[in-house]
Each structure stands twice: as structure tokens, then as C-alpha cells.
């Protein structure tokens, strides 16, 4: 058994800093590179891409990225784990094999984790007594069944561990938890038992710290943002994990950013619910037991994490179509910037009413004045400028489209000194609503398939 392993975060979301995974590979030693690509609505976007072209439906950015680092990954034995397979991990694998052939790579094993996509089995699952009701509102699935776009089970670390045991150098999954990507290599390397809840919880905490990339290493750090050096060259976080479950959060030497108790604490609290019950498919981690302390420059040691047994359920992430939105902006300058923006808002609403258009919501905010602080906004005597941001949402696409055509006319038919309408007419965009549910683990099985070049 290795005395420790270094797991590097390469992407915090799909669209994160493109060079981050390349830097993680090139700027220092790592054993694993983990990359999270899937936000809650991403699967529905990928599902739509796959409908148009059956060879798509995965994070396409992954292919040129892996192409760039593949020779080093292979020569150094770095293993890559990513959920960028989306709803089509097999096509993603084939595209990677194609890249490997082009690069003249002789040997490469890629594993694919599938079985999370239950869209086609929904009706048989509900027929066998899985209600898939909305776990937040209790509403029955039947109320949105016809509008369902995607349905995916969140798998945990287990199938990734199986893939690593099959010798895969790259593991491509569909919907797996962000934390499972980081926990899996620890289970694999250190041979942790399936019921070693404390260690599983500790690896899960490490996954939570890594899952948003540089948010743990100085990015978006509110504590004292001026103290963070060289964010231009920010180093993404690395977990140096030990067999006993303890780990050190760090980053490559010579990179920018900051790993401190405060930056790690901010990330620990990010998107946290009840801290005593951080539920994943692998375990229930208790965040109130986490101990941490600084252990040298850009090093924070974490230990003491307690866990409880995993639940009998997988979480299911479903997405359904729920109408349209459009948002437009107009910038008003001094004098009377706020008054003019508010007048324009009133005029627009009268025109929408005259047209007989009805919406579920019309929302107006003044950027620079009150969009974040609402009723808690401080008084500003005379702003130089404010941006009126107005949006509508409704089920009728034509009404939302028509709203978009009512924005530009305000420039010549409303209050004066307005600009900032360079972006063109606001177009309706589809609302993809989120439907979280629970499914008994026994009702679905992850499939792990390893292939070699």
C-alpha cells in the first residue's frame, strides 16, 4: 500500500478554467486527477444534444483537454476520474480512444460507469412501486411525467472503485456524486471496507473540499480577498490522503492562490444543508466532527471525521420542461438614473398589459442599486448610472418572445439617456426545472465496463 496519494481537482464545473487540469498535471506530482462536469441541469442539456445527434451527450470539452495531457498521464501513470460522460459515456470513451490512437499511445484502459440513466425505465420503475415523488414538495411524478427530459441516479464511489480495480487509467462516468470522484481512489488504494463509515466520511469531506476547484484555494474567498496572492495563476486544490482517513489540503508549489484554514472552512460550508447529515450514496458524513488546522504554508490538515451508515436510497436527479424566460437590460445615466429606470419599467409593464400578455412572473431589478440587497440596500444619493434588468417567465413561448420585442423600443419611446442595448433582442430560453427524488438502491445496478486500446 502506498503511504499516501495525491488527488488533484481539475475542474469545479463545466466551463471552469480550461488550463487548470493541465497545470495540475504539469506543475507538480499527482496520482489522480478528478474532474466534475455535472451541475443539476447539465444532464438535461446533454440529453437534448444526444436526441439531436446520438453520438453526443457528453462533455465535449473533455476530449481536447485529455488530448493535450494524455501522453504525460500515460507515461506518469496518473489516473483520471470524471463524470464528464454525461448521458453518453460510451461515445465519450470512443472519442478518447480515437484521440489516443492519433497521439500514438500504445496501451490505454478506459472504464465506463453506466446504469445511472433511468429515463427509459421510468414507467417500469413506477409500475414496480417506486413513486419517484418530489422529495422536497411531495408532488407525484405523474404531474410532470409528460414533460420529463432526463432522469439520472446519483451513483457514489463504489462503481468507480470497481473500475479502478479493473485497471482503468481513465474512468468516465455518467451521473456520479462529486464527492465519489475523490473518495473512490482512497477506497481503492487503501482497501477501506464498505462499512468503514468514519474513513468513508473523511474521504467524502475531502471530495466536498475539492469539488468546486479553486473555491478551496483562494478563489471567491470573502474572508480577506486582498490577502490571496496571484489569483491570475491560481493553483487548484490537491488532497494528500492517508490510509487512516486523514488528509492534507494543499496545492502545487509556485502556483497562486491560498490554502488556509479560512479558505477551507468557506468551502466546507458551501452548499451545505444539515451539517450532521451530509448524505451521499457512500455514507452519511457528520460535518460537525471535522477537525482542521494549518500545517505549514498552503497546507491544512483535516482529521477526526465521523460517519454513519449509508441510507438504502439513491438520490435521483430529474429535469423537466417548465415554460420559458427572457431577460433584457437597459442602462440609464445621470441625471435621475434611478427615477428614469423605474419609469421605463412602468411603461414596459403597461405595454405588456395592453397587449394582453400574461406571465407567471415579471421581475425588475436595478443593477448597481438593489439586485442583491433588495430591502437591505443602502441609500445611494445620485448613482452615475443604473442598469434596469427586467425578466419574464411563462408557459406561452409566443408571449415571452413578444416581451423581447418590447425592450428595444424603450430607447426611442421612453425616458432619455439610455444605452447598453448592444446584446440584441432577448430570446426566450427554456426553463429546465429540477425534480429530486429517491429510489431504493436495490432497484438499479451500476454497470462497469472496461475496454483497452
Amino acid at each position, binding site marked *: 500500500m502506498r503511504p499516501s496519494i495525491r488527488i488533484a481537482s481539475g475542474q469545479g464545473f463545466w466551463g471552469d478554467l480550461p488550463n487548470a487540469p493541465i497545470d495540475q498535471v504539469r506543475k507538480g506530482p499527482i496520482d489522480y486527477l478528478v474532474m466534475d462536469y455535472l451541475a443539476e441541469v447539465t444532464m438535461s442539456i446533454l440529453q437534448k444534444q444526444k436526441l439531436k445527434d446520438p453520438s453526443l451527450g457528453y462533455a465535449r470539452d473533455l476530449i481536447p483537454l485529455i488530448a493535450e495531457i494524455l501522453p504525460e498521464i500515460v507515461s506518469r501513470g496518473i489516473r483520471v476520474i470524471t463524470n464528464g460522460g454525461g448521458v453518453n459515456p460510451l461515445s465519450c470513451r470512443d472519442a478518447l480512444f480515437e484521440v489516443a490512437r492519433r497521439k500514438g499511445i500504445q496501451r490505454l484502459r478506459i472504464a465506463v460507469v453506466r446504469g445511472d440513466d433511468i429515463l427509459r425505465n421510468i414507467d417500469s420503475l413506477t409500475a414496480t412501486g417506486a413513486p419517484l415523488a418530489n422529495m422536497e414538495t411531495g408532488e407525484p411524478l405523474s404531474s410532470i411525467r409528460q414533460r420529463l427530459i432526463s432522469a439520472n441516479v446519483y451513483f457514489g464511489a463504489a462503481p468507480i472503485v470497481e473500475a479502478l480495480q479493473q485497471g482503468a487509467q481513465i474512468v468516465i462516468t455518467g451521473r456520479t456524486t462529486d464527492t465519489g470522484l475523490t473518495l473512490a481512489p482512497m477506497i481503492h488504494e487503501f482497501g477501506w471496507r464498505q462499512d468503514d463509515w468514519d474513513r468513508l466520511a473523511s474521504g467524502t469531506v475531502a471530495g466536498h473540499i475539492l469539488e468546486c476547484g479553486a473555491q478551496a484555494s483562494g478563489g471567491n474567498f470573502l474572508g480577506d480577498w486582498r490577502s490571496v496572492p496571484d489569483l491570475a495563476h491560481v493553483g487548484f486544490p490537491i488532497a494528500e490522503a492517508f490510509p487512516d482517513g486523514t488528509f492534507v489540503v494543499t496545492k502545487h508549489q509556485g502556483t497562486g492562490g491560498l490554502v488556509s484554514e479560512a479558505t477551507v472552512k468557506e468551502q466546507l460550508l458551501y452548499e451545505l*444543508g444539515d451539517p450532521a447529515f451530509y448524505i451521499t450514496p457512500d455514507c452519511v458524513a457528520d460535518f460537525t466532527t471535522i477537525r482542521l488546522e494549518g500545517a505549514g504554508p498552503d497546507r491544512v490538515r483535516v482529521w477526526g471525521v465521523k460517519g454513519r451508515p449509508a441510507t438504502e436510497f439513491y438520490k435521483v436527479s430529474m429535469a423537466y420542461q417548465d415554460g420559458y424566460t427572457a431577460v433584457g437590460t437597459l442602462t440609464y445615466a445621470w441625471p435621475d438614473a434611478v427615477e428614469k429606470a423605474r419609469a421605463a419599467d412602468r411603461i414596459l409593464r403597461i405595454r405588456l398589459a395592453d397587449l394582453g400578455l400574461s406571465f407567471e412572473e415579471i421581475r425588475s431589478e436595478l443593477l448597481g442599486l438593489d*439586485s442583491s440587497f433588495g430591502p437591505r440596500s443602502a441609500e445611494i444619493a445620485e448613482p452615475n448610472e443604473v442598469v434596469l434588468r427586467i425578466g419574464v417567465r411563462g408557459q406561452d413561448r409566443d408571449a415571452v418572445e413578444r416581451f423581447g420585442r418590447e425592450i428595444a423600443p424603450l430607447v426611442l419611446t421612453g425616458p432619455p439617456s439610455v444605452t447598453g442595448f448592444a446584446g440584441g433582442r432577448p430570446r426566450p430560453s427554456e426553463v429546465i426545472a429540477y425534480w429530486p427524488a429517491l429510489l431504493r438502491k436495490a432497484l438499479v445496478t451500476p454497470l462497469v465496463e472496461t475496454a483497452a486500446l
Partner: protein
Amino acid sequence: MKAQLIRYAHARSGDKGDTANIGVIARKPEYYPLLVSYLTAERVAEHFSGICLGKVERFELPNLHALNFLLHEALGGGGTKSLKNDAQGKTLSCVMLRMEMDIDDA
């Protein structure tokens, strides 16, 4: 004595659907008791009136000298449904830290 919360704490906020979470962390361990006694769920709900339309829950993390707040119905529907500029509640941490505290009430 009056003081703004940002003097004693830093924070990070994010989203889960239409629920925002705000983690509030004491800048020094000795400030944590002040946060526990002053930042009650009721006070935070009052501070966010007009922004958070549902209930406010509070959880304590004494190990991190931090509190976690859940603000239900605070994101205009959340996700792609929300028409808010800050649909993910990223700046609600700042709204929290702007709170004027009357320390004698702690």
C-alpha cells in the same frame, strides 16, 4: 455598542434549488459565542425579510466556529426558473455580513 457583522465573521453562500445556504464563520474563535447568541434564526429571518419568503433554519458547527443557515424560498424559484440576477444566492453572504448588530443585545 453597534457593529457590522463583517467585523466578526466571513461567509460563503450558495444554492440548492430555491433554498439558499449561508455559512457564517467567526474570524477568531473567541467571536463564535457572539455569533451563536446574536445570530438567531429569528434575527436572520428578520434581516432577510422581503428576500427570504420561507422559513430560516440554523445549524451550529462549533468545530469550525461556524453557523450554517438555510433560507427557504429565497431564490425566486431557483435554477433556470429564477429571474433574479443572483439566482444562485452567491451574494447573499454579503447581505448577511452587512447586518448591523447591537452587541449589547447579544
